[in-house]
């Protein structure tokens, strides 16, 4: 791959700029120039300002699942268009665009894997696909994954990260996914199975107000935006600026909503520790 890129550099000056952009980029927060490969090896955390970049679902899997152990389930499920939503942009069009942009079929990836050698089921919300919002597919795949864990008596781990929460294009169907996913977490509870929920930036709205906050153990990455109402909505309601750090991981930790604040580099280790205590 790298060899291929080098060849492009020599041939096409236009591409050269592209490649440079590809290899180097500016940190959104501190503005420092970062070598992309190094940044990715550091799990997309800026070494200068400690800013947490947004990881994709598959990057999460590479980070958390034991190498080569992840078996994806229901990989090709795509969303229907229950409302036949047209609006400014038709939902069907929007879905197509998002699939093209992200290479994903939907905002969730589910599968079976080993974490620290322990068989587990994992669901990962990808915030890059329509802001990781809760549509039919997110609800259905989450529910299937939980039921899959239930059948096999495996622990269930979910990595959340969704900005908007609800998916407007699916109207009340989207809202009902909150009830559906919460109900299946109830089944896990009844069956006595462990559910670890990891909150990443951002976990808001319908995702927060359903499965994300129902974890038996809730872990959050530092500085993640987590809450029910969006900061802008709150500011408009109270007509005041919000205090800094409001709705961030550390704020929620202080208010007793989170068990563990885990650095990204230590996330796998922390999950394994929990699984080892309870499952070995």
């Amino acid at each position, binding site marked *: 791959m790298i060899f291929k890129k080098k060849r492009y550099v020599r041939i096409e000056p236009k591409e050269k700029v592209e490649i440079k952009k590809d290899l180097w980029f500016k940190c959104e927060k501190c503005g420092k120039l970062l070598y992309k490969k190094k940044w990715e090896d550091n799990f997309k955390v800026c070494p200068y300002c400690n800013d947490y970049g947004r990881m994709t679902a598959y990057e999460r899997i590479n980070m958390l699942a034991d190498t080569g152990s992840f078996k994806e389930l229901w990989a090709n*499920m795509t969303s229907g268009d229950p409302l036949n939503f047209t609006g400014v942009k038709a939902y069907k069009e929007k879905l197509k665009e998002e699939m093209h942009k992200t290479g994903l079929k939907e905002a969730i990836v589910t599968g079976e894997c080993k974490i620290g050698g322990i068989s587990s089921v994992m669901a990962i919300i990808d915030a890059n696909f329509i802001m990781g919002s809760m549509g039919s597919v997110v609800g259905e795949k989450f529910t299937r994954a939980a039921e899959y864990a239930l059948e096999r008596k495996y622990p269930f781990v979910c990595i959340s990260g969704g900005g908007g929460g609800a998916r407007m294009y699916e109207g009340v169907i989207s809202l009902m996914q909150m009830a559906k996913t919460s109900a299946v977490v109830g089944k896990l509870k009844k069956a006595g199975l462990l559910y670890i929920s990891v909150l990443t930036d951002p976990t808001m709205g319908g995702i927060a107000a359903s499965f994300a906050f129902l974890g038996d153990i809730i872990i959050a990455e530092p500085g993640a935006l987590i809450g029910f109402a969006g900061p802008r909505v709150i500011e408009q309601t109270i007509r005041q600026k919000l205090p800094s750090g409001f709705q961030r991981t550390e704020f929620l930790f202080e208010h007793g909503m989170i068990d563990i604040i885990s650095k990204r580099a230590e996330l796998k280790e922390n999950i394994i520790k929990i699984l080892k205590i309870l499952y070995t």
Partner: protein
Amino acid sequence: MERKYLDFEKPLEEIDKKISTLEVGKKNGTVENVEDVVLLKQQLAEKTKEIFSNLSDWQIVQLSRHPNRPHTLDYIENIFEEFIELHGDRCSADDTAVVIGIGKFRGIPVAIAGQQKGRDTKENLYRKFGMAHPAGYRKARRIMKLAEKLHIPVITFIDTPGANPDIKAEEEGQALVIAENLMEMAMLNTPIICVITGEGGSGGALGIGVGDRILMQEYSIYSVISPEGCASILWKSQSAVEEAAKELKLTARALLDLGIIDTIIPEPLGGAHRDWSKAFELTASAIYENIRDIKTINVEQLVELRYQKYRKIGFWNEGEEKNE
């Protein structure tokens, strides 16, 4: 209560005024012609039918928020033979946006929870416009757990623009308490009937809205986001509010077709706000029929049926399966 009119109700206002002038005159003996009143009432009914046979979704949104519409406590006072209001979440506060209690409904003991809106500014400040804080959701959950213990049905009345979006709500874990309510309601070992009487505003409505039967009044709405919110996010313009209302499929009719609700409760001609007693009667019969239906199902089976009811909601394509 002073009668208020929405823009599209204006033609009714004129007829209403004429009728009340004649009726006052009749009382005082200054008007003798009774026929005029009969005629005007006919005219009123026809005009109302004409307007209401062709309502847009946006007009239904406005009706669901009509200032004269009966609120939760109005239903409670008129539908239940007996009612005792209970207070507090046993944790931090008594949220005035939520009313809970126990009551008798046609001889059956029931537990009740509902969001309560106010009628004027003072009342609305007290009731927080029906927008509950975490304490309100815990308060509702508390009465549901009591119902489970006593094996009595839960009836919830839903009428809220949404859960309260302020600093306090976030500090106290609004997302967490709503999530917990959804899970608890899904698992609750007793029948739950949810009645949407006005505005079913998103997660705030769903927070007391998971049940065995979801009933919706004809001119109430249930939506993932307000049409105003949707218009500003997707269209970036408030002038798109009518279009947004239409796209969101938030009316009782649309939601029945989508399989989200179980029953539409018909409203009196011109809407619940024009004839409260008729609205109470129609609502009470719908609740009664549904309670009668589900009371015969054993609880374990009922909870599993409830699970399956939500389990199947959604629209997706499997795609080609290559992994299994």
